[in-house]
């Protein structure tokens, strides 16, 4: 549906290089990456608001690289919603209909439907400044959708909402996917958010795409240290790989599976590491004993840093487990993980 080929963009200090990906029709695609990686610029380029230096953007078979934004049929919803402050809610939503070739009555019908779908009835005559953040976002969504865009671009739609509204928005997105034919491209800096929404995506870093694939794939099998850091793989080690064994400074880790030539790193998710006060009889191939060097509170969870032969592992436990196991700094402890939890790259 949308294909982006070898896009190079220069914008002030930002440089996007060699951006290539494809999104299927009606797909939900998430572009992820830390702030400053060029995600919003990529969205604006797809919308036609920034001209790329080289490369092509196509919708289906039609090339749109040099089409002005108003002729693309691509709607954008910004992080700050960018509602027109001098227009009421209904005037904001109706805005795109002034330029649409669709007949007036059909447009108005669609507008009514969206007001209902997005739960905006009763707010029609209000001005944006009097709306809550969640309401503003729904108005922005309605305004973007009323013109029946082929593609809907969402710039960090969850970051400005409080957690309660985030859940609501996720449900809304699901609903929208069923109700519209638009292909949705969303940008986020938060991997857990992307994972919760699912679908396919790409991780960007420093103006380049690091990895493209399903969320599950990116989460389980990051292709670079940057991606594994981004998806929250705390245990990341440079290793020597030989005969299904990884060696970190004398510590031998059983991989139990083969790896590609040239792989030099292993990564283990902290939640895949099991802690125990005593040696366990288990099917887990790797077990080590070490000393707790640091315990860091992460709200609902605690990060336990354990040193095994000068190599530091990180595991996550709940507060309950922390108390039950009487974990404290300096305590000797056993840690276990399955060989399938080890990811090499």
């Amino acid at each position, binding site marked *: 549906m949308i294909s982006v080929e070898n896009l190079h963009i220069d914008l002030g200090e930002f440089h996007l290089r060699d951006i290539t990906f494809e999104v299927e029709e009606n797909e939900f695609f998430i572009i992820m990456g830390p702030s400053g990686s060029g995600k919003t610029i990529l969205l604006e380029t797809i919308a036609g608001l920034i001209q790329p230096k080289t490369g092509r953007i196509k919708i289906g078979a039609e090339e749109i690289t040099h089409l002005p*934004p108003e002729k693309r049929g691509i709607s*954008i919803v910004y992080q700050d919603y960018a509602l027109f402050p001098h227009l009421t809610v209904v005037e904001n939503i109706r*805005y795109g209909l002034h330029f649409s070739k669709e007949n007036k009555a059909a447009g108005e019908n669609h507008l009514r439907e969206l007001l209902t779908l997005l739960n905006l009835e009763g707010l029609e005559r209000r001005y944006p400044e009097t709306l809550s953040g969640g309401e503003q976002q729904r108005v922005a969504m309605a305004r973007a959708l009323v013109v029946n865009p082929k593609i809907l671009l969402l710039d960090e739609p969850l970051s400005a909402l409080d957690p309660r509204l985030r859940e609501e928005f996720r449900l809304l997105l699901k609903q929208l996917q069923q109700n519209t034919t638009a292909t949705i491209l969303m940008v986020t800096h938060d991997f857990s958010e992307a994972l919760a929404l699912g679908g396919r995506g790409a991780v960007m870093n420093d103006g380049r795409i690091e990895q493209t694939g399903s969320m599950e794939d990116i989460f389980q099998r990051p292709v670079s240290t940057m991606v594994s850091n981004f998806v929250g793989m705390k245990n990341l080690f440079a290793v020597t790989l030989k005969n299904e064994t990884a060696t970190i400074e004398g510590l031998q880790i059983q991989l139990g599976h083969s790896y590609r030539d040239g792989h030099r790193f292993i990564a283990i998710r902290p939640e895949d590491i099991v802690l125990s006060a005593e040696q366990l009889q288990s099917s887990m191939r790797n077990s080590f004993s070490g000393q707790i060097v640091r315990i860091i509170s992460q709200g609902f969870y605690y990060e336990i840093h354990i040193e095994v032969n000068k190599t530091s592992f990180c595991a996550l436990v709940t507060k309950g487990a922390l108390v039950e196991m009487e974990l404290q700094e300096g305590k000797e402890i056993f840690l276990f993980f399955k060989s399938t939890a080890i990811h090499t790259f």
Partner: protein
Amino acid sequence: MLRKDFFFWGTIACAVTVMAFIALPLVQLLTAPSLEMLKETILDKDVLNSIELSLTAAGVAALISFILGTPLAYLLARHEFHGKRLVEGIIDLPIIIPHPVVGIAILSVAGRNHWFGQILSEWGIRIMGSVTGIITVMTFVAIPFYIKAAKEGFDAVSPRLENVSRSLGASMTSTFFRITFPLAWRSMLAGIIMASARAISEFGAVVIVAYHPMIAPVMIYERFETYGLKYSQPVAVWLIGICLLLFLLLRTLTTKQKNQHDLR
């Protein structure tokens, strides 16, 4: 509670001095002429003509500033380009240059010895001693004020609003008239008022380009030179009255804008 120490009283003293410095001469001027004299002055055809000329010429200068300055202000607010600082510097020049120098500079371009002056005279346009000349000089000194105010207005409109408008199917022209203009017009209007106030008050540059037809400041000067303070005062009062009116209009408009911001 502010501690009333030396610093506090120092600032108060300075504030009072500045207020008195500005207000005292103006109050004195305004109260000096009798009502009868004021009435007599405004019934004087020459005075009326000069004030009318001042107002219309300044109005036209402001209108020209609006038409030519708006696109430039927009360009400066939206785009980064090489030499932008230079362009902004050039726009500031009329504010910095001594006023008589402005008049002399304009005359040197409009004179018969200059190719531009020759073109003008071929077209039958005269700068020296004409209303056209007065408007030219006034535009020269007023346009920076308009451009600055309009640029500030455009700066305050997020480019994202324009982006969204474009993505919803509006051309750049539609976007400007439906989004940018309605959000920036207050600043543009404030700019127009500032520019006309500046144009009305111009004396030094105008007097060099056109002593006649006489604008109000030139008439005040002439009456002062010929008849003395007492006869120049009533004309000055009428001119000040009009300038204050413009100033008040500007103040009410900008405060209204601030109140609207508070609501957001």
